[in-house]
Each structure stands twice: as structure tokens, then as C-alpha cells.
């Protein structure tokens, strides 16, 4: 980054014709550079969304012509208890992710940022590790650990406290909580590195000045750390919100939505309707409802937090 050019720009100017051509090229160059995204975006996002909206007004099993049935899919959706359950479960996951995972990763980052901490990079590396693994591996491991009869966790509880017969994955409430634990285990370390980077960006003088002014650790946390971390927090919150709202792999692999439908997520609902029950129109309608919710929440929080804006 030391390659800053200090030469005065007093070079012989190129002839005018060449200069205008260069300027013309400079004008269309950025469009060309960003065009791959917009081509793929149109083909593989906009067009499918349009097609999805159309499909959501039809009844179609994948063969023949879709039959137009008006808003029947939507009326059915809002009376469908499974859909209600999947909405509630997804809401539960998302809220938990925001109120548990977010503060937890901030706390860990704060601990990792302690002055003179040894092994900082080692800890960061270990915490980060789960996120590089495939969800199928994670779900498998959690299946081993939380198995109701022979799982490691029950065995440990049994050894320590003398009880351990909890059916983690077959009890509706516990199964939901285990999914959240999985999300927590998978994402916390990943988010920690963002917070840690943000914390390391806080000028040391700021904390020292506050210390001189007699501000305690709690006060410093709320008046310096939190405001300065705002952009990081916003970025992470939005990412986490959008990701968790689409949660699929964790409940799909761990419990397959069960017991009953108590861990079913919206994405799983869409997948099940489309690819297991061949109700493509109905699945599309569920997708559209999800799109409206996630997109509205996402846009709302993006503008509320000012994410992605530069100053």
C-alpha cells in the first residue's frame, strides 16, 4: 500500500481524439464490470421471483399446464396449521439467534480483546472452526450428542447429576432448543471475529481518556464500545436475521422437522410442499409469503441500521 504515486501529473496530454475515446470507454466500463451480477440476478433471481408469484396463483403438480386458481393457495396457507407452526418456529429461531448469538459473540470478542491475552489467535481459530464444516456433519454430531437414549450429553448429565433421561430430540420444546444450540455453536465464533475486529479498531486513547474521567468498565462498554461497534453490529444483525429466517439444513438434518412439526421451518415447509408433495403452486405461495416477510424485515433493518451506506 506504499505505492502511492507522487509524480506530478504534468505528462504530455494524449491527443484530444484519443482522450475522448478513453473517456467514452471509461463511461461504459463500470456498467460492463457490474453487468455479470445483474445478468445473473435477472436470470436466476428476478425471473424466478416473477415466475414464483405467477405460480402461487395456480395449482400445479409439475405436469401439464398450471391451472389458475386465484388466491386459493394463500387462503389455504393462512388456514394451514403446518404453515403457522413453521412461521412460529422460524420466528423462534430468529429471535433466539438475535438475542442469544449476538450478545454471546460480543461478550466473547470482548474477552478475546483483553490486553496482553496470550493464545488469542488460537482461541479465535478454534471458535471459528465450526462454521467451516458442512451442516450435515454438524447435524450428525449433534445427533450423536443429543440422542435421547445413548447420547453423550445424557451420559454426562447422568454421571454428574444422576439424571439424564431427557429426550432431547423427541420432545417438542427441547428439540427446538437443540436446534438453537446448534445455530449458536455454528455461528457464534464466526460472528466473534467481526466483533473482535471492530473492538481492535477502537482507538486506545478513547478508553484511556474515559478511564481518566473515572468511567468504570460498564460505563465504558455502553458509552464507547457499543456506539463505536454500531456498524459491525448492524451488519451482523442483518446477516444473522436474513440467514436464520431461511434456516433449512439444521432442522432438516437434525430432526427432519419433528417431532411432529415442532421444528419445521418455513424453508422446510416450501421444500416439503414442492419436492415431496408435488404441490408446486402451494409451495410457491409459501415462498412468496416468506419473501415478503424476510425482504421487508431485511430492508427495514438495512435502512434502520444504515448498513452498506458509506457515510
Amino acid at each position, binding site marked *: *500500500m506504499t*505505492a*502511492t*504515486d507522487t509524480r506530478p*501529473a504534468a505528462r504530455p496530454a494524449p491527443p484530444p481524439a484519443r482522450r475522448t475515446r478513453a473517456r467514452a470507454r*471509461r463511461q461504459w*466500463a*463500470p*456498467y460492463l*464490470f*457490474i453487468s*455479470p*451480477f*445483474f445478468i*445473473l*440476478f435477472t*436470470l*436466476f*433471481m428476478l425471473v*424466478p*421471483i416473477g415466475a*414464483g408469484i405467477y405460480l402461487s396463483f395456480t395449482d400445479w403438480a409439475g405436469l401439464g399446464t398450471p391451472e389458475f386458481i386465484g388466491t386459493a393457495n394463500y387462503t389455504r396457507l393462512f388456514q394451514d396449521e403446518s404453515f403457522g407452526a413453521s412461521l412460529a418456529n422460524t420466528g423462534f429461531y430468529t429471535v433466539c439467534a438475535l438475542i442469544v448469538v449476538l450478545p454471546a459473540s460480543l461478550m466473547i470478542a470482548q474477552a478475546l480483546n*483483553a*490486553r*496482553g491475552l496470550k493464545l488469542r489467535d*488460537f*482461541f479465535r481459530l*478454534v471458535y471459528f*472452526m465450526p462454521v*467451516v*464444516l*458442512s451442516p450435515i*456433519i454438524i447435524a*450428525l454430531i449433534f445427533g*450423536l450428542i443429543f440422542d435421547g437414549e*445413548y447420547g453423550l450429553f445424557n*451420559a454426562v448429565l447422568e*454421571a454428574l447429576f444422576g439424571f439424564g433421561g431427557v429426550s432431547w430430540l423427541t420432545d417438542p420444546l427441547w428439540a427446538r432448543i437443540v436446534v438453537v444450540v446448534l445455530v449458536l*455453536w455454528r455461528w457464534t465464533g464466526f460472528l466473534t*471475529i*467481526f466483533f473482535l*475486529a471492530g473492538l481492535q479498531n477502537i482507538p486506545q486513547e478513547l478508553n484511556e481518556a474515559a478511564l481518566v474521567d473515572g468511567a468504570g468498565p460498564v460505563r465504558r462498554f455502553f458509552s464507547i464500545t457499543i456506539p*463505536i461497534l454500531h456498524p459491525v453490529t448492524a451488519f451482523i444483525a*442483518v*446477516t444473522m436475521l*436474513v440467514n436464520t429466517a431461511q434456516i*433449512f439444513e439444521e432442522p432438516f438434518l437434525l430432526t427432519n422437522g419433528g417431532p411432529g412439526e415442532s421444528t419445521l421451518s418455513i*424453508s422446510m415447509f*416450501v*421444500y416439503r410442499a*414442492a*419436492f415431496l408433495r408435488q404441490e*408446486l403452486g402451494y409451495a410457491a405461495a409459501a*415462498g412468496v409469503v416468506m*419473501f415478503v416477510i*424476510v*425482504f421487508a424485515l431485511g*430492508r427495514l433493518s*438495512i435502512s434502520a441500521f444504515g448498513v*452498506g451506506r458509506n457515510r
Partner: protein
Amino acid sequence: MSTAVETPGGRRPRIRPARIGLYAVLTALALIAFTPLVWALSSSFKDRSDIFSFPPRLWPDPATLENYSNLLADQPFWRWMLVSTGVALVSMIATVFFCSLAGYGFAKYEFRGKRILFDIMFSSLAIPFAVIVVPLFILVAKLGLAHPLFALIVPWVAPAFGIFMMRQYTEQAIPDELIHAARIDGCSEFRIFWSVVLPLLRPAVGALGVWSFLNAYNTLLWPLVIVSEPEYYTVPLGLQALFGAEGRQYDLVLAGSILAAIPAIVVFILLRKQLVSGLTAGAVKS
């Protein structure tokens, strides 16, 4: 860094209870992050009937390689691995190229509609996959684009997150003067990007590369929907098929998971510094 030197005559650094508590907490968290992996590793060497033995044993006894040999003998595991790594590598190269190019376009040019185009790009982060999965599946199938390798790679090579990240990094790392100088030297716009800008983006390129490799390598939902031919199964898909089939074959799937995790962990450990600094560069900037 050492505060003891800066404050002569001040408190000597000594081991305080708070410090011990801090290390205890961090170590406990490291154990929580690590134990499940160790448990999976150890279980993968256990006899099928010992995987759920009670009381649980950390050390496999008797230790056996049977799970691995059974998996490799009965399942086309290396074929899955080939498809997965191939798809992940091609996706990685294409993603890095398209995202750096677009990120550079957004970072260093002023053009009509820039703000709205950027907003559209950024909003696409909030489009849930579930809304496009059904119609996209139908479109891809109807248009005859359903060749697994096409469908697994092409739609995802310009992710908005990557473009956003590269834009942030380009703004910080590339001085405008450098681009002006290259322009005065008569470089074409693409040439400036390719030989002046791209080499300076190396840390962010590394991070985005790892990120997109792991994404493509680990993803399950889209392969599950689009790949029906077993010869194009990716590793997660193959393992899912094994796991979903009769009686959850924990023994085989465990062995496969451990083998599948190795490339991901190796890539991660080799490029960890770049990954951490590159990923956070974009988000941290205020």
C-alpha cells in the same frame, strides 16, 4: 503492547484472579467448540455397535478402520469428493473474478444510476432462497440447463455479499492516484483492473476465495433439489442420502463426514489470517 514497560514504577503485571477466570472461560468455550469434533473423530473409529455404547468412551476400544473401508468400498465416495471439490474450485475462481470486478466498478467509478444499482445489489442479500428455489428449479429444468455442473455453479458466481466485501476493500486499499496514473499511461480500463488493482486486492481475494469455496463445498439444499443423478452427487448430498436411507447409517456417515471435513479444515487453517482480515475489513469500516 507490553504495558509494563510503558509505566515504569507502576503496578507489576501479576496474575490476578480475573485473569485466571478469563482463561478458564476461554478454555471452556474452546472445549465446547472442539469437543463435538473430537467426539465425531473418535466415534468414526468405533465399531458400529460401540458408537452409542453406554457409558460413552472417548477412546475407541477396539479401534477400527472398518467404517472407512466400508464406506470407500460400498459408496462412490471419491466420486462425490471429486464433484464437490471441482464445483467448489470453479465456483471459487469465478466468484472471486466477478466480485472483484463488480466491487471495483462500484468503488472507483462514478456513473449514472450507481446508487440505485448498488441498492438493488445490496437488497438482493435479503431475498430468501426459498422463494426462488421452486421456480428456479422449474426454469432450469424446462430450459434444459439442468446439467448438474451448470446448475450447481453458474447461478451463484456473483453473490452480493462478495461484491459488497470487495467494494469495501477496494475503497480502502486502492488509492485513486494509482488508477489515474495507469490511465495516463494509456492502460485500458480492464487492464487497470487486471494488472494494477487486482494484485493489490490479494488479502480480500483470499478471504472471498475461502468463503466461496466453503460455501459451495458445504451447501446442501440446492444440490438436493437439482441433482438427481447419483453420479453428480456432492459430498453433502451423498452423505445425506446415506443418512436418510434405512436406519441412519451413523458408522458410514461419520467416516464420510470426517473425510469430507478435511479439505474444509485444511483450506481454513492455511488461509485463516487472510480469511479473518479480509472478511472483517468490509464490515468493520464505519
